């Protein structure tokens, strides 16, 4: 074991080949052993297996779903399935999709803004109750959300907001994990000296936040925004209980309703092919967004650091 100090000389790496790639920050890396590649490839297959399943399953009609093996094709009902999904019940699926997008956008942006402000305040501003509030936060999320559903319902009902978009959006704005992340990021990325300098110059805290902190925290914003959008898009339990107007359902609740209607026995709506194709179409936007926006969020994550 060597002693590692900050004063160790930066020497030219002499082992192995490494190339500097964009966004790499010049980190020395090796080509990787056969073993590690094998492990990675196995894991790769494991993570993608269900996606393969749902792609294959989406091409099947109901009969084929129930009789052909899960991982290979049966008949070719993809076009029919797609058509059915979008026309069933007057095209309510499209409505659900728009709802999900709306909730995710508003909820995601909203949660990010709220968490950023709070996280920064916890990290960099001094105000009474700061430590108490922060320490209590972790304890609060230990009680399962199940306990909160009925009181939340009663509260929103009193406010007349049950069965409305606010019943979905408002609760998602509360994101303790996001606040944690921002506090850590703010601590790491925003140097105290810059803040002090700006304060001495007489800048207001708001101004400091906007001009000094925010630009530096941009990768954190992107990261938390991404996580918030995903989490709101996938929001399921609370909307399930709050919403009874099916025109307000997000995709998760809508698909669940189709699924339950199909499995409830008394009734003959065999909707499984719809549930599967609907699920595939529900996943595609997010995965596509990840792929397209890779540069931003992968860059964002690597510039930050959680120590």
């Amino acid at each position, binding site marked *: 074991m060597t002693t590692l100090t900050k004063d160790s000389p930066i020497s030219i790496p002499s082992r192995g080949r490494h190339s500097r790639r964009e966004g790499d920050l010049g980190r020395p890396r090796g080509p990787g052993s056969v073993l590690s590649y094998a492990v990675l490839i196995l894991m790769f297959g494991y993570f993608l297996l269900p996606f393969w399943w749902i792609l294959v399953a989406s091409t099947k009609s109901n009969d084929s779903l129930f009789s052909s093996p899960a991982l290979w094709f049966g008949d070719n009902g993809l076009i029919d399935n797609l058509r059915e999904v979008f026309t069933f019940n007057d095209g309510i699926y499209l409505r659900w999709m728009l709802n999900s997008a709306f909730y995710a956008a508003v909820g995601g942006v909203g949660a990010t803004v709220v968490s950023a402000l709070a996280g920064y305040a916890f990290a960099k501003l001094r105000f009474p109750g700061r430590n108490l509030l922060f320490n209590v936060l972790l304890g609060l999320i230990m009680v399962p959300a199940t306990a909160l559903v009925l009181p939340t319902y009663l509260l929103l009902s009193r406010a007349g907001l049950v069965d409305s978009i606010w019943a979905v959006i408002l609760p998602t704005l509360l994101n303790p994990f996001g606040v944690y992340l921002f506090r850590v990021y703010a601590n790491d990325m925003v140097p105290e000296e810059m803040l002090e300098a700006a304060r001495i110059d007489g800048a207001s805290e708001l101004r400091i936040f906007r001009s000094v902190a925010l630009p530096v925290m941009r990768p954190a914003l992107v990261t938390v925004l991404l996580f918030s959008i995903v989490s709101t898009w996938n929001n399921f339990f609370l909307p399930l209980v709050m919403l009874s107007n099916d025109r307000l359902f997000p995709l998760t609740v809508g698909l669940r309703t189709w699924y339950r209607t199909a499995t409830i026995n008394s009734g003959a709506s065999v909707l499984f092919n719809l549930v599967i194709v609907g699920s595939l179409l529900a996943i595609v936007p997010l995965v596509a967004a990840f792929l397209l926006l890779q540069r931003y969020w992968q860059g964002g994550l690597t510039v930050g650091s959680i*120590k």
Partner: protein
Amino acid sequence: MTGSVRTRRRSIHRQTGTGLLFVAPFTVLLVAFLLFPLGYAFKLSLYRSTLIGGDVFSGLGNYQDVWADPEFRQGVVRVVIFGLVQTPVMIGVALIAALMIDAITSRFTKFFRLAMFAPYAVPVAIGALMWGYLYSPDLGPLHADLLTGPLALISMGNIVTWQWAGYNMIILYAALQGLPREVLEASRVDGAGQLRTAISVKIPMISSALVLTVIFTIIGTLQFFTEPLLLQPLNPGTITNSYTPNIYAFYQAFSYQQYNYSAAVSFALGAVVFVGSYLFLFFARKRSGLQ
């Protein structure tokens, strides 16, 4: 001197004002959607209610019933075992993956990162659906009854790992990416191989990120809910209405209308989670970035 004192005081005054302002939206939401519901639920838990009679104040009576309730206790044992196994597995997978892609230079690793993170984008309801089909004894690839008996917990644990390992991996990977070059260079210069570097250098240096992910995984496993709920129809003989304490709380409230008892179950579970989390934090206190 007085000039800078005045500036200092004004600065602190400004900080307080802005601090409170910034924290206000979060605090309002916290009060509305966390503190108030918790308070209300706690109050509920102090009353007993029967289908025939009304509400009767019973103090901690519900809690006595809960701790004595065999269905609750079995659920607790189950989630504790689940947590003890699932947490190392999940974080282990995430950590190994993060270390590997941190150390390897290849275009493939970028695809791999995406592939591992993609399940996080899948709503839990759909993830459970996908794996439910893959677990089909006749049509799935494994041709085994994976949702019966003890195997059920492992099968559901698999779904959780599949869904969340990528998310945890990204957090750990980001931490790894933030490590200072010099330290890693020094390790390399001193002759340490990749594995040694990983174990002795990298892992200790991302300990606070590790603690963060472990804590949230512990909380998640002890509160295990969604996967059992969604897969229950496939095998209600194994996945019963009290399979985990959280599921038990759900059915008590939303199927049996036992809102008071349900609240007590939830808080009792909260106590278990509290103990579990702080036990872990205690043992990890030297490395914790959360103090």
